[in-house]
């Protein structure tokens, strides 16, 4: 017996919309610009809460734990640990649709590419970032792996200047 697909009478529909793109918002001035400028200099910027010493990356304006505003900005290590990872199957056309556009056909993702998404905690920070794990085969990736940030050689002043992480020297014993 397979999955049972129950059908219901298809009645008429009335159409409408919600212009979500017409909304606008506000961000703390300078927070992300300084983060991106640091990426251009191959550095990672975070904010340090003077109450509990936690460092948030990307920079955060309020520490929920101390219920206070965070005043200090600090550069953190480019090295970190892989907390966990996900591996995509070899990518083919029709597999990844982004807003209706085929990500492989449009060249954003390469045919047959296996992307590893790593959950990375940079040393000394209380945050994690989800970044591609580069220059390693999926079979060689493991939880707890030491990794190092990989920056773009020609930074364009964008979030994508932090390309991902790659394996750092592992303990050999």
């Amino acid at each position, binding site marked *: 017996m397979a*999955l049972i697909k*129950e059908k219901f009478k298809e009645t008429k529909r009335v159409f409408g919309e919600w212009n979500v793109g017409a*909304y606008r918002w506000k961000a703390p001035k300078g927070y992300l610009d300084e983060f991106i400028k640091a990426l251009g200099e191959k550095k990672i910027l975070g904010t340090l809460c003077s109450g509990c010493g936690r460092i948030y990356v990307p920079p955060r304006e309020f520490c929920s734990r101390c219920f206070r505003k965070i005043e200090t900005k600090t550069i953190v290590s480019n090295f970190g640990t892989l907390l966990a990872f*996900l591996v995509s*199957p070899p990518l083919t056309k029709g597999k990844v649709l*982004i807003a209706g556009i085929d990500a492989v056909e449009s060249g954003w993702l390469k045919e047959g590419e296996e992307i590893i998404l790593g*959950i990375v905690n940079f040393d000394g920070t209380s945050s*994690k970032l989800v970044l591609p794990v580069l220059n390693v085969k999926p079979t060689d990736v493991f939880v707890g792996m030491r990794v190092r940030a990989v920056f773009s050689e020609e930074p364009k002043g964008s*979030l994508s200047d932090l390309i991902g992480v790659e394996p750092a020297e592992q303990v050999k014993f």
Partner: protein
Amino acid sequence: MRRVAIIGCGQTKHGRRTDINQAEMVSEAVWKAIEDAGIGIEDVEAFAVGNMQGFGGIAHPEMIFSDYIGAFGKPVQRVATGGTVGGSVAQLAYYQVASGMFDVVVAVAWEKHSDSAEPGATTGLLHVAFANLSYMFKKGLDMRSFAIMGLAGAAAGISAYQAAQYMAKSGCRIDHYDMVAAKARRNAAKNKYAHLKWPDCRPEDIAKTEMLIWPMRFGHVCPASDGASAIVLASEDAIKRLKPEKPVAWILGIAAYADEEADQGESYQGTGVLDYSAQIGCILSAKKAYERAKISDPRKEVDMAEIYAPFPHQELMFSEKLGFFDEGTAWKAVEEGITEIDGDFPICPSGGVNATNAIGSSGLQRVLECALQIMKKAENHQVPKDVEVAVAHAWGGQVQFNTVTVLSDKPKRW
């Protein structure tokens, strides 16, 4: 603080309901609950409602169908907490009665995903991060990075990271996720209201489905269902007045602690949550709910649980945070069949959220299903063992909200 019990349950058939509109769907659940409670609409003094309005594209829909559910002249209070909304609505209704403000209230929560033109729950979930994404594009996020982010999918995304982190910590294998998904499909086949039914689904059937992004298969993903769940809550003296003889499900204790958003802060700020599967909110909610319900050893004193697990790893992860299994060992219980419908500790005998997910309804449905088991009204998916204490859990927000509700067949346990 007065004692409160569920005296009536009503829900619609969950599925792609292209035959009824949102007002009809919600009123069907409400009237079924009132009928099941054996009372009249005039006995109902207030309503607790909630859904994720962005999914169905209607703002405050309960205002449009206030007459469909007999709300004229009565207070209608609305809460909205993401995927947890059903659990939050049930807890609002509990507070409405326990505070002594009302004697009889109806709690209803629902979702109509098929009214959105985008597939499944994309609109609502995309819209959680839409503002952040807009900002990231403004800050030069290129399409390759955006495509990579989208690999895991809007909903599955964060849950896929969570599945990977739980696996990294507990040492379980992807086959255990297949076992939980198969159990959900099998149990759902016994539940006439459930959506995805696969009578004798085996883990191997799930293992054959396409790998979306390791460790998440297509067979692990929950459906986007249309559906509504409603329960009638009454105070102890109202129960004496209205229905002294029929079985009821007493609510012994509830709690809902919130953690910091686990993925991204506002405008792509960082957050202090290192591990999506840590779920501190669930641990605190369980501890406080058990304290209020006078339960000291959940594994011994609780008989079954309905856990909010749109994805199989979440049933394992949350059953540990709720104190039913030691940290990182829930997958062993699945192997031994402990959590089967006829096992020692049944989890999600209804098929759970993995088989049926109308996001607004799911949280309330967990409380409703526990009540059905306690009142022995779960028909084909009634668990064989005697259920005296059941725990209903709901989860949502940006992987950060948890509601825990402890129900029992007796007003108090001490």
